[in-house]
């Protein structure tokens, strides 16, 4: 068994393992949470009800920029069954300071704030202004219509470049520049002067919505000890701290429980229903449910940042990149949320998975009166793929080098330094992922008719996993054997559908030899499970995975020591492993065979604990300032390449995806089924962004108020997504795993654009790639190749 490897020193340990030594980990096991989900018995956040509970709903601003001149709840309060109507003045502490959610941090708050309920000023369409609480949903609906709020329109600004211009209407006091980052590395001037070729391009990415199937929801109640309980759909149980601050009560008095979440993708990283539920419960002292509608979710919850990317790339004739100039402008919308960090991610990832020695990067994000923007799978690291991969194709075309070759020529390798200054410490299988997708794809498809053109595109990416290293990230988990040899794991990880809890069971099973069906993982409870931090930033396998590994190893070692003392055998001669016959854990050695239940009895007799708390600390580093230069920004990175074959209808601009192949090095697949699910689901979400999805805004008014207008891919929009999993064994997670939650959403838009470029000779540069934009490429491009000429 591989688990004899030493535990990692604070975040830097890389624990490799041979795949063939693994017994439970690395097996494609049906996840334990699936049976209940398929039976229809899983109770999501909106599924729990209390007898005689109240219902709460927000009244939101119908305008994007205005002064609130009058608020009157009297008509609403007159509706039978209405319990209360709350305005900002009713909130004990009506300010939410923008910070990084979850854990103790050393970086200062951005000194940006927003009101829980807006009082004097609204800054975006959909901003919450009043909270109504009623006995029934019907009374609630009626009362919300009757809350009278008068707005006096104020000049707004809806474009980040305009927002940064002199004289623009100020969204907040202190100007519209929310954040900026710079990279100056090497000597870009000399690099461009020495270049054989320079290619330039401008690219634009749109605002998109997470569109998880489960809209924001939750139930809150006060328990017998006066603790405020919130059972909500969230990626962050640590928001109990923010809730306590808003109510002005001790953090220990608030408990957040995350049941199985119906999709997160970053959209449940910031608070959604939490502060409002908490206010309603605190005020009424009764159980309250809040369920946002899909329309509210699309209207007002933070989106992905729109970005305007400008690239210039200098290269030698042989395709070697010499330097890059990058300019990024991002739309932060009306409030700060995590925009500054999203932009930092964009900046660090902006050169892609390539060696670029000379870089000038300028990036800024601006407040506007558009819906706020914040975390979304890929977190700024994904928009830039659309830019840097376009540049690679332009360079390939200019130099007559195949797209695959130019990527391989410049691919990062272990020991290379990223533009920010961080050295890549683990093996990079980027070239292998390129070979893998091309090897799988075979010949390019031929057009199905005379007015059709086919194209093939590839796109590679780099995406960090784990949080920024100055956030002092940590995760804790507890593992304890029961008297019958079954195992309880407690870990504060929210399970948002990626198999987070199930993977922990596999890791514990691997170490302790307890069969999967005898392990229960209690998760996502800020009061009863050790805090494991946010299910964000592709960090949970790295963080809580390592924490559970630590806890399980501590338990294993204690048991082995107890059995050694009991039998007089040296510790080194004993091992805890699964008995091949029974599947149960057993301590064996020369003349020794002690089953786990027997070993538990031995431990109890000898005062040896049969439970342990494991804590994993992420790699550390110093905070960066505006000038990005650091030895380490992220723990590590995941690399991959996607390939897209498609056919374009030259008359309608319609794109049909014929084939989609995605390859990533995941280090080690803890559960190959979950890994494949993350890759195909991430690719699908990226393809939606590529071709279909857009939050449409007209001077700050959100026009996408439902799934009628906001189109996510259906089963008929997508081909089978073929996944290829490479395993370097080099990740920093348990058993050498890398994170794979976010990385697969990066390449699709670029891969589709590349394939259209290949088909039409002209490249779409604005997302989403609608039929209209494809037809522009048809008009602009070289004459498409005839059938068979590809």
């Amino acid at each position: 068994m591989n688990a004899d490897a030493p535990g990692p020193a604070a975040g830097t340990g890389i624990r490799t393992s041979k795949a063939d030594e693994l017994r439970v980990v690395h097996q494609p096991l049906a996840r334990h949470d699936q049976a209940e989900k398929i039976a229809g018995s899983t109770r999501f956040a909106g599924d729990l009800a209390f007898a005689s509970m109240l219902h709460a709903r927000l009244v939101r601003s119908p305008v994007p920029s205005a002064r609130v001149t009058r608020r009157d709840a009297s008509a609403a309060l007159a509706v039978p069954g209405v319990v209360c109507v709350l305005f900002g003045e009713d909130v004990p502490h009506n300010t939410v300071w923008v910070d990084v959610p979850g854990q103790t941090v050393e970086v200062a708050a951005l000194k940006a704030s927003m009101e829980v309920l807006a009082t004097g000023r609204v800054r975006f369409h959909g901003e919450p202004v009043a909270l109504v609480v009623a006995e029934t949903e019907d009374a609630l609906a009626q009362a919300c219509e009757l809350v009278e709020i008068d707005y006096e329109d104020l000049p707004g600004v809806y474009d980040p470049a305009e927002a940064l211009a002199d004289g623009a209407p100020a969204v907040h006091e202190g100007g519209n520049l929310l954040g900026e980052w710079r990279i100056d590395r090497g000597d870009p001037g000399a690099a461009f002067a020495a270049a054989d070729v320079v290619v330039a391009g401008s690219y634009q990415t749109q605002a998109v919505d997470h569109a998880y199937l489960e809209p924001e929801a939750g139930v809150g109640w006060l328990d017998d000890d006066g603790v405020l309980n919130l059972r909500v759909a969230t990626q962050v149980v640590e928001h109990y701290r923010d809730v306590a601050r808003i109510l002005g009560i001790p953090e220990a008095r608030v408990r957040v429980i995350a049941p199985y979440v119906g999709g997160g993708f970053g959209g449940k990283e910031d608070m959604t229903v939490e502060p409002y539920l908490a206010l309603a419960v605190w005020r009424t002292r009764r159980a309250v449910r809040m369920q946002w509608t899909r329309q509210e979710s699309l209207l007002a919850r933070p989106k992905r940042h729109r970005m305007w990317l400008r690239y210039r790339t200098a290269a030698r004739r042989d395709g070697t990149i010499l330097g890059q100039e990058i300019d990024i402008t991002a739309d932060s919308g009306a409030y700060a949320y995590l925009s500054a960090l999203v932009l930092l991610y964009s900046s660090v990832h902006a050169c892609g998975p390539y060696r670029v020695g000379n870089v000038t990067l300028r990036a800024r994000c601006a407040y506007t009166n558009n819906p706020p923007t914040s975390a979304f799978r890929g977190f700024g690291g994904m928009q830039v793929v659309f830019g840097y991969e376009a540049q690679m194709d332009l360079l390939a075309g200019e130099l007559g080098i195949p797209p695959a070759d130019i990527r391989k020529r410049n691919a990062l390798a272990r020991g290379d330094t990223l533009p920010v200054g961080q050295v890549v410490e683990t093996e990079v299988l980027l070239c292998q992922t390129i070979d893998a997708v091309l090897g799988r794809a075979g010949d390019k498809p031929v057009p199905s008719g005379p007015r059709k053109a086919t194209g093939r595109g590839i796109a590679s990416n780099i995406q960090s996993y784990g949080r920024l290293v100055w956030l002092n990230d940590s995760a804790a988990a507890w593992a304890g054997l029961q008297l019958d040899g079954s195992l309880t794991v407690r870990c504060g990880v929210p399970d948002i559908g990626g198999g987070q809890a199930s993977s922990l069971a596999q890791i514990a099973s691997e170490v302790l030899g307890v069969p999967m069906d005898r392990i229960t993982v209690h998760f996502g409870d800020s009061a009863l499970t050790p805090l494991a931090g946010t299910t964000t930033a592709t960090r949970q396998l790295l963080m809580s995975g390592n924490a559970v590994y630590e806890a399980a190893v501590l338990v294993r070692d204690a048991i082995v020591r107890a059995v050694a003392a009991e039998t007089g055998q040296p510790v080194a001669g004993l091992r805890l492993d699964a008995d091949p016959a029974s599947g149960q854990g057993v301590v064996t050695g020369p003349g020794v065979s002690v089953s786990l239940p027997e070993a538990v009895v031995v431990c109890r007799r000898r005062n040896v604990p049969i439970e342990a708390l494991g804590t994993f600390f992420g790699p550390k580093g110093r905070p960066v300032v505006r000038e990005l230069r650091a030895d380490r920004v992220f723990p590590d990175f995941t690399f991959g390449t996607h390939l897209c074959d498609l056919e374009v209808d030259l008359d309608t601009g319609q794109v049909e995806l014929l084939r989609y192949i995605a390859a990533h090095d995941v280090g080690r697949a803890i559960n190959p089924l979950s890994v494949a699910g993350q890759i195909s689901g991430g690719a699908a979400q990226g393809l939606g962004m590529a071709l279909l999805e857009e939050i449409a805004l007209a001077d700050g008014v959100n026009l996408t108020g439902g799934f009628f207008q906001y189109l996510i891919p259906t089963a008929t929009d997508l081909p089978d997504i073929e996944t290829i999993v490479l395993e370097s064994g080099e990740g920093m997670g348990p058993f050498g795993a890398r994170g794979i939650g976010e990385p697969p959403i990066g390449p699709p838009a670029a891969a589709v654009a590349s394939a259209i470029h290949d088909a039409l000779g002209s490249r779409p540069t604005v997302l989403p790639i609608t039929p209209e934009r494809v037809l522009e490429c048809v008009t602009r491009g070289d004459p498409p190749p005839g059938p068979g000429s590809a």
Partner: protein
Amino acid sequence: MATITLAVNGRSVTRAAGAHLTLLRWLRELADVTDPKYGCGEGICGACTVLVDGVPAASCLILAAQVDGATVTTAAGLAEPDGSLSPLQRAFHEHHAAQCGFCTPGMLTTAAAMLADGRCRSRAEIRAGLHGNLCRCTGYGPIVDAVEAAQQEAGQQEAGQQEAAQQEAAQQEAAEQEAGR
């Protein structure tokens, strides 16, 4: 308020409800049947799909009063009489067709109707049949795999039953010939 009685997953449930109450809200709020999900409220996402007298329907668009007296089957009602997962549900489990699981009840009810109708003859046909059910986690491939597998299993069973029936008929014929000799 009107009294509405539905046979929900084999259980007769009677609840008084306003005439405006949707079937989805009636099930979730009055009958504690929570596996049909609210996902959009406008019949697009399919998470609320239930079978009304065997026909898949978006329960967020139907009023409970419209279907008074009907038989309603949700995903939870697809299980075998002994409570074990149905072959379709087992296929979902084996093919990793649920990730977050929120779309799953609607996917299952839609797929159950497709299997009953035999509208699963190809992957393209399965995809077309699932077109009204959105999933944001899987990319749909594993769900198509599961429905395809369930269809194959059902087809094999059907073929097996036909074969058994043919054998029986042949035996009977032989016996009759024997008797007639």
